[in-house]
């Protein structure tokens, strides 16, 4: 199997005169669970659609399980699972029949797992699809996309309309899918707390580019807030390598840096004659800082 599940290079896409993607690079190794974060309108859905070959990019390349996204083979399509942001299903079918119908497209459909998921998610098998709520529709779409245990699962805002219980169940299912270390998951979300349990990597889309892409643990280990208290007034502009945001008020300052090291802390304490405390940031705080709004 391919070592690189997703390989995007220099991808660009404009709608009318608005350039949504301005050269996106992203390489996802097999087995990774990647959370794609970005503010509303940052281009997450466009990126996902380009990746899956649903939208034609203007430039650059996207490869998926080894295939060019513009021309996916039936074999690779059979190894994909996709849950779009807006779900369209065959409205007139009963849920039970839609599951049966979908299963016929996949030779490796995992009947037992689907039964388990249907129970866990309380999917109403006897109802017609048109009677389902938005959340139930999304749940059903996720079950249908998981049924053949895809090698690559791509989800666009899968949790937006799920209640907290369903969201927790969803995350459990993603962990189960990724458990053997061979299956890759990419999902976009703006709910950072969902990512913290399951994601191995986090990519942040900002102004049409990937502003940050790293392992989640590594991100939390290196992006820190420094709380400084000096003996004299601090300069209004702090000169710190990798400074993301800062706020100076007299002798106190808050500065967020992209890479903290013990050496940096010592050097700042020395240079500004200040007591420097290092504070941990969670993913939501890191996301806000990386978008320059700290």
């Amino acid at each position, binding site marked *: 199997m391919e070592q690189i599940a997703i390989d995007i290079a220099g991808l660009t896409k404009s709608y009318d005169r608005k350039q949504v993607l301005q050269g996106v690079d992203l390489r996802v190794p097999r*087995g990774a*669970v990647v959370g794609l974060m970005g503010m509303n309108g940052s281009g997450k859905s466009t990126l996902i659609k380009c990746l899956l070959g649903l939208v034609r990019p203007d430039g650059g390349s996207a490869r998926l399980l080894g295939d060019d996204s513009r021309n996916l083979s039936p074999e690779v399509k059979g190894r994909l699972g996709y849950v779009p942001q807006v779900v369209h299903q065959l409205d007139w079918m009963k849920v039970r029949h839609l599951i049966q119908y979908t299963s016929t497209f996949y030779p490796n459909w995992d009947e037992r797992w689907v039964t388990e998921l249907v129970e866990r998610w309380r999917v109403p098998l006897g109802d017609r699809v048109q009677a389902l709520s938005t959340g139930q529709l999304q749940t059903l779409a996720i079950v249908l996309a998981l049924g053949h245990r895809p090698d690559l699962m791509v989800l666009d805002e899968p949790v937006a309309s799920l209640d907290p219980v369903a969201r*927790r169940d969803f*995350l*459990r299912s993603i*962990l189960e899918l*990724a*458990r053997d*270390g061979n299956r890759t998951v990419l999902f976009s979300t703006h709910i950072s*707390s969902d990512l*913290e*349990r*399951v*994601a*191995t990597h986090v990519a942040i889309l900002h102004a049409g580019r990937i502003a940050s892409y790293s392992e*989640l*643990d590594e991100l*939390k*280990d290196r992006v820190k807030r420094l709380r400084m208290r000096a003996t004299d007034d601090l300069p209004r502009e702090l000169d710190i390598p990798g400074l993301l945001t800062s706020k100076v008020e007299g002798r106190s300052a808050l500065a967020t840096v992209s890479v903290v090291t013990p050496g940096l802390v010592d050097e700042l304490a020395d240079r500004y004659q200040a007591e420097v405390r290092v*504070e*941990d*940031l*969670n*993913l*939501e*705080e890191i996301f806000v800082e990386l978008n320059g709004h700290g």
Partner: protein
Amino acid sequence: MTDASLEFEIQPNSGVPIYRQIMDQVRALIASRRLPQGAMLPSIRQLATDLEVNMMTVSKAYARLEADGALERVRGTGMRVRPPETLPTVAERQEELAPLIEPLVTRAMQLGLTEPQLIASVRSHVKERQSWNKSPSTSRG
């Protein structure tokens, strides 16, 4: 959920990466003897399932604890708490001698021996033991 997993409390939304939280908690459980020497830890898969976190996270925490010497990998079985390699400190071992030394000192005082005489006496016995260990066949005459 296994009993051992219940000892862990993970806060995914903390700024401390989950693998570090697991490492800190394993160390604390060892220090408090709730995980005694030689105790097996839950398997990576088990702990990841119980805590609802990615297996890679648990795997990373265990690997680092192994590198630090807190855990050891037992082939085909899993991870267990490693017994400390170092001996008890000198002070701790001297403490063990106290019940034997007390009657010795009492008897020396009763016999009217001075401190240097007592120490000389102990030293000669230590010397004798050392030579005895070097040539065990020599008779003690």
